[in-house]
C-alpha cells in the first residue's frame, strides 16, 4: 500500500468520522477542533485535492445557496479504496502501539 502524508491521513479520517455535512468548511472546523491547532485553508484543500486524485475520495455537488454567493457545496465521501486505506493505517498503527501502554515509561 501507499503511505499517505499526515495531513492527508487526518483529512481522510475526518471525513470518515464526522457527522456534519462533509464539505470544506466543516472538515476544517472538525479537524481544528480535534487537533486543537490552526489549520490554514490550504492545508485542508490541498490534501482534499490529492486524496481525490488518488481515488480515496469522491466528491459531488449539492444545490447552491445564496449565502455562498450562488456556489454549490462540494461533499466528499470515502471510496472503497479510501476505507481500505484507513483500515490499513489503523492496522499498522495498532501493530506499532501494541507494546507501548504508556508513553511516560522510558524504554530501557
Amino acid at each position, binding site marked *: 500500500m501507499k503511505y499517505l502524508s499526515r495531513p492527508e491521513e487526518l483529512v481522510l479520517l475526518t471525513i470518515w468520522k464526522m457527522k456534519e455535512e462533509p*464539505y*470544506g*468548511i466543516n472538515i476544517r472546523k472538525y479537524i481544528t477542533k480535534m487537533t486543537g491547532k490552526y489549520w*490554514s*485553508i*490550504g492545508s485542508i*484543500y*490541498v490534501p482534499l*485535492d490529492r486524496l*481525490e*486524485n488518488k481515488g480515496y475520495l469522491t*466528491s459531488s*455537488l449539492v444545490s*447552491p*445557496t*445564496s*449565502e*455562498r*454567493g*450562488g*456556489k*454549490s*457545496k*462540494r461533499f466528499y465521501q470515502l471510496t472503497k479504496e479510501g476505507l481500505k486505506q484507513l483500515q490499513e493505517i489503523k492496522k499498522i498503527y495498532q501493530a506499532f502501539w501494541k507494546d507501548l501502554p504508556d508513553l511516560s515509561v522510558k524504554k530501557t
Partner: protein
Amino acid sequence: MRILKPPAIAKAVLWLILNHSHPETMIGDFEEMYNEIARNKGPFRAKIWYWSQIILTFPSFVKNSIYWGATMFTNYFKMALRFIKKHKVFSLINISGLAVSMACCLFITLWIFDELSFDKFHADSDQIYQALGNGRIPSTPLPLAAALKETFPEVIYASRFEGIGEPLFRREDKAFYENGVAVVDPDFFKIFSFPFLQGDPDTVMEDIYSIVISERIANKFFPGEDPLGKALTMNDELDLTVRGVMKDIPQNSTLQFDIAIHYDIRISNFTPAGADINSWGWWSPNTFLKLQKDVSIIAFDQKITKFFQSKFEKGNDDEALTALPFTERRFFFWETEQYIMIYSVIAVFIVIVSCINFINLSTARSANRACEIGIRKVVGAFRKNLIFQFLGESLFLTLTALVTALLIVSTVLPFFNSLTGKQIAADSLNQPSILLIMLGLVLFIGIASGSYPALILSSFKPVQVMKGHLNLGSSGSVFRKVLVVIQFSISIILIIGTGIVYKQLSYIKTKDIGYAKDQLITISLKGESRRSYDILKNRLNADNRILGVTGMADDLPNFGWTSSTAEWEGKDTTKEIHIGFNFVDYDVAKTLGIELVEGRDFSREFMADAESGYLVNEELVKLMGLESAVERPFKEFGKAGKIIGVFKNTHFLPLTYQINPLYFQLNPVRVNHLVLRVPTENMPATIQFIKDTWEEIVPMYPFEYRFVDADFDRAYVNIERMGRLANVFTFFAIFIACLGLFGLASFTAGQRSKEIGIRKVLGASMPGIVVLLSSEFTKWVLIANVIGWPVAYLVMHRWLQNFAYRVNMGFGIFILSGLAALTIALVAISYQTIKAATANPVDSLRYE
C-alpha cells in the same frame, strides 16, 4: 438573514491564485465562512479575515509560480536563442522583416503625430476660428473682421491676416527682400499666442507704424544689438519701428511669417487705386476670430451667415459664412487628412505583410521543431504550455525587432526629415503616446503572427512526430498560399498606386499650361526700382537676347486676386460673381506666350488701350454668354472700357484648380513685377546681362529673380513629397514580401527535394525543374493580380478626383505592375529554385 458579499477585488485575487481542481466550490466555501464571521464578529472583521487568508496564501503561491515560471522561462529562452543561432538565415529574414516594417510604422506614426500637432500650441486654440467665405475659401471681405467684432458679443477678438509679396527692408547698409511678411490687425497677437522674446503682444500693434520681427530677422538686421525701438525701412518708402521680437514660428504652425506689420499699411500702400476699401466686394485677407468659451458653432454660423447676406444689396442667398476651428486649418487647406489616411493604410499593409511573413516562415520551419515538441509533450507539457512558449518566442523576436527598428529610425530620421520637409526630433519617440503605440505594435505583431504557428506546433501528436511522420496537412499549405496571395495583392496595389501618382505628377509638370513658363523670369519691383520700371523695361527690351518684357501686379505663376465688382452687359446682378484679375503692361500676351483666340494684344498704337483696354480669357467669355467678346464694354475699378482681345484658357493656378474667369486690365502704374521672357539657351549669360543692367539703373537694390517654372513646380511639392514617401514605403513593403517568399521557396524546395531527385534521375532538365518550382508561385502572383487590380483602380480613381486636370490611368500601368510583381517574385525565389534544381539527386535520395 442578510447576505453579505466579500470585497470584489479580494474575490478576484482569490480566483487568480487558487490552485485547486474545484475553484467554484472553494470560492463558495470562502463566501460562506465570510458570512459566518460577519454575523458573529461584524463585517469589518470578516473583511480582514478574507484578506488575511489571501495574504497568507500569497507567499507560497508567488514562490511556486515564480520558481516554476522562471525555470520554464529559462528553458524557453534558451531554446529560442538556440533556434535563432541554428537557423541564422531564417531568423535574420524574420527579424529584419519585422524590424523594417516596424521602422516604417514608426516613421508613419511620427509623421501623423507631427501633422496632428499643427496649431495646437496656442493657448485656447479651441476658441480660435477662421471665418470662411462663400464656397469655403480663405479670402474674406476687407471690413469683415471689424464688423463681426462689433456686431457679435461672442467675438472677443478679430483680426485680418494676409501675406504681402516680397517687400524690401533696409537698415543702414543691410537690405533684403523678405517673403514672410504678414499684415495683421492689433488683435492678432491677442488671438494667437506666438511667444514673444521682447515687447508686449497685447499692445505691440497699437501703433500703425510698428513692426514685429522674428528672432531670425532680428539677427539678420540687428546682429548683436537690441532691436527694440529701432527703425526698419520698407520699400524705401516707410519707416517702421520694431516694437516686438517673437520666437521663430515653429514648423507645426499653419501661419508662417517672419515679419508682422499693421493692416492699415497694406491698405495705404498695397491697394489698387480706385478700389473701395469699405466695399464688401473686395475679398482678400484671412479673417481670424477668438470666440467666447462654449459658443455653439452651428448657431454662430447661422447668425453670421445671415449678417453676411445682409451686407450685399442683392440679398444673395448663396452667400454663406462659416467658422472653421483653427486647429482644423491644416486638414482643411492642406488636405492632409487624406495623406494621413493613405499613410495609415500603408502602415497597416506593411504590418500585415510582415506578419504574414512571420506566420509563413514559422509554420514552414515547424518541421525543425517537431521533435522538441514531441519530447515536451511526452515529458508532460500541456498544449497550453506550448502555446505560451511559442507566443512568448514570437514576442521575443518582435521585441528584438523593435530594438532594431528604433536603431533604424534614429539613424534614418535625418533622411526622413529631408524627404518629408519636416523637422522631427529623435526625442519625439519618447512621447508617452508613441511609446504606447510601440508597445501595442509589439503585442499586436507578436500575438497576431505568433498565434497561428503556436496553434499548429502545439497540435502535433507526439507519437507520429517522434516516428518521423510529420504531416503538416494540406489545410496548412492552403492557408499559406492564401497569405502569400494577400501579400502580393497588397504589393501590387502599392505598385499601381505609386505608378499612378508618378504618372499624374509628370502629367502636371509637362502639361501645356498655356504660357511659356520655361522661359519666364520675374523680378520684384520696390520703391525706387518700381519707379525705374519704365527705364528698366526699355533698356531690356532693346536687347535682342530678351524676347519680351512686360509687367504684372500679381506675380506669376499663381494669381490669387479676385473681385466681384466687374460690370458688363447682361451680367446676372442677382449673384456675387468673383472674377480673377491682374494688372498688366503692354506686350503681355507676347511676353507670356499666351495664344489669342480673337482680337489683339495691348498695343501702344491704340491710345484707348491705356484708358479702357481689357484682355479676357475664354472662360470669362463663356460666363458672359457671348460668341465673340471683342469690342464689348467691360468696367472695373472705375475704368469703363471694352474688351480688345480674348486669350485661350491658361493655367494661372495649380492644376488642382479649374480654370476660372480672368481678365487683364492694362494698368502699368500698378505693376509690381517685371516679367522677362528669355531663351532657355545661354541662360547664365542672359541673366548676367539683366543683372548688369539692373545694377546700372538701381544699384541700391539687390538683384533677385525667380524662374516661373520653378515656382510653378513648388505648388506640387507636397504631392511630390507624398509620392516619394509612398514610393519608399512601397519599396519596403515589397522588400518584406520578397523576404517571406524567399523563405517560403526554400521550404517548398526542401519539402520536394525527394521528388526533384527522382525527376532528375528520370531525366528532367534543370530548366524544367526551375519552371516546375516557379509555376506554383507564378500562379499565386497571378491570382494576386486579379484581386489587386480592382482595389487599386477604385482607390486611385478616388485620389485623382483631387485634380481638376488628371491623367488617364490606362490599362498599361496595371499590366506593367503585375509583370513587375511577377518578376520580383521570381527573382526572389530564383536562388532557391536554382539551388534545388542543380542539387545532386544522390544527396536527396541517399538517406533512405
